[in-house]
């Protein structure tokens, strides 16, 4: 009996180690030898399934664990996460609120709830949950990640870069943090800086690079010297760069045309050339990069 229990504990310890190393298949293999009357085994199985992107299986594992221990806060958290990743926000909310009922000062659960409501567009409530989580543990990585997510979803470009920098400063070896900073810098108009961050992330975690391959290619396109004028506009006017350019051109042509000057015609031609440049250059660069690959 004792030998069986020891074997079960060893299997769980081994699975835990594989999860730390992000070797989810191996973790599942190790868990298969565990005692499934133990809710911890189900928690580990749910974590491994989440790591493999098998969200339905993760949800099932968390539910089976909760049948054995309905007050298991971490299983409730995992259930909420699995449901969230499956797109079931209502079910995820029920689970995370049950977890928070057991421990209202659990930073990760507060942040997961914040992410849930933010993903539904309820930013005011997400900010309140973030403030609550910050009060409990201002140094938590989950707090920084939620801060960055809120900045990104609310189009706060400069703040998104700042919060991503904090994430990187906290853990420079974290590929996800480097990637987040890469996206934030690119979106603010600093594509070369973003590309460097993305390359760092790819070196730290090649699987992540495969997952975000298209973004990496797009950032390479935007980093090209031919895209310098567009980057400048993006830095100056953010997401409205294109419409601002058009408004300036239309306004300029209108006013100069009214003044009766020949310059309006020159401006029209210049603007047309600029439109053609913005339209043709990115696809050409994409094609050129694809050929070089």
């Amino acid at each position, binding site marked *: 009996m004792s030998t069986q229990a020891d074997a079960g504990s060893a299997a769980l310890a081994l699975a835990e180690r594989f999860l730390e190393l992000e070797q989810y298949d191996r973790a599942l293999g190790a868990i298969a030898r565990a005692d499934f009357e133990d809710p911890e085994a189900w928690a580990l199985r749910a974590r491994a399934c989440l790591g493999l992107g098998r969200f339905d299986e993760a949800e099932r594992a968390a539910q089976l664990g909760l049948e054995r221990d309905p007050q298991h806060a971490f299983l409730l958290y995992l259930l909420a996460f699995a449901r969230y990743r499956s797109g079931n926000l*209502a079910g995820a909310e029920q689970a995370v609120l049950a977890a928070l009922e057991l421990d209202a000062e659990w930073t990760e659960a507060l942040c997961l709830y914040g992410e849930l409501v933010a993903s539904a567009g*309820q930013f005011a409530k997400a900010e309140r949950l973030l403030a*609550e989580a910050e009060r409990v543990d201002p140094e938590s990585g989950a707090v920084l990640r939620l801060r960055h997510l809120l900045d990104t979803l609310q189009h706060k470009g400069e703040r998104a870069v700042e919060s991503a920098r904090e994430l990187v400063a906290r853990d420079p070896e974290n590929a996800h943090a480097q990637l987040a900073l890469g996206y934030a810098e690119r979106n603010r108009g600093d594509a070369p800086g973003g590309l460097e961050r993305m390359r760092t992330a790819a070196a730290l975690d090649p699987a992540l690079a495969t997952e975000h391959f298209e973004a990496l290619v797009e950032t390479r396109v935007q980093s090209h010297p031919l895209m310098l004028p567009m980057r400048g506009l993006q830095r100056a006017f953010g997401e*409205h760069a*294109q*419409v601002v350019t058009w408004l300036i051109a*239309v306004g300029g042509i*209108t006013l100069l*045309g009214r003044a009766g000057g020949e310059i*309006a015609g020159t401006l029209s031609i210049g603007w047309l050339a600029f439109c053609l440049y913005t339209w043709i250059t990115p696809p050409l660069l994409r094609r050129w990069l694809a050929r070089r690959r």
Partner: protein
Amino acid sequence: MSSRDDLFQPTLQDHPSIARDSLARPWRLGSQLWVAFFGGPLAIAGIAYLNARRLGVPRRRANVILAAGAGASIVYLAALGVWIVPALASGVDSGERTLLRYSGRAFALLLYVVLRLLQRQADALYRFHRDGNEDEIYESLWGPGALACLLGGGAAAAAGWLAE
């Protein structure tokens, strides 16, 4: 109820599940710019409203988009009939003609900015919930956009013809 208790009240129970593939894919916000420029206020209003529905914008906000688009279109058609067409018909110089021709486009571009701001939160959430590159998650606007431009331009031409 304290403010902290209030924080733990469920607010997502009526939220629909995020069906990642079932909805019609929306159009890129950036692509709507050329619809505004070539099709005018009526075309961009129609495309923005349809896109808001595709993005799953809450009904109240979708109605604001519809109202803003409809209001701007009425103002534009009225200006066309009352001011622009009669002025062009009465024989103005080329500078004046440029001003009249481009004022409608500038108005449509400003309307585009407003309608874009009204769609952008839903667009950000849509992108957040989807994996894949832009070509996979967005629909091409070429066909519907060209049709909207034809209809918008046709309506403006009809308003001009009536004014004459």
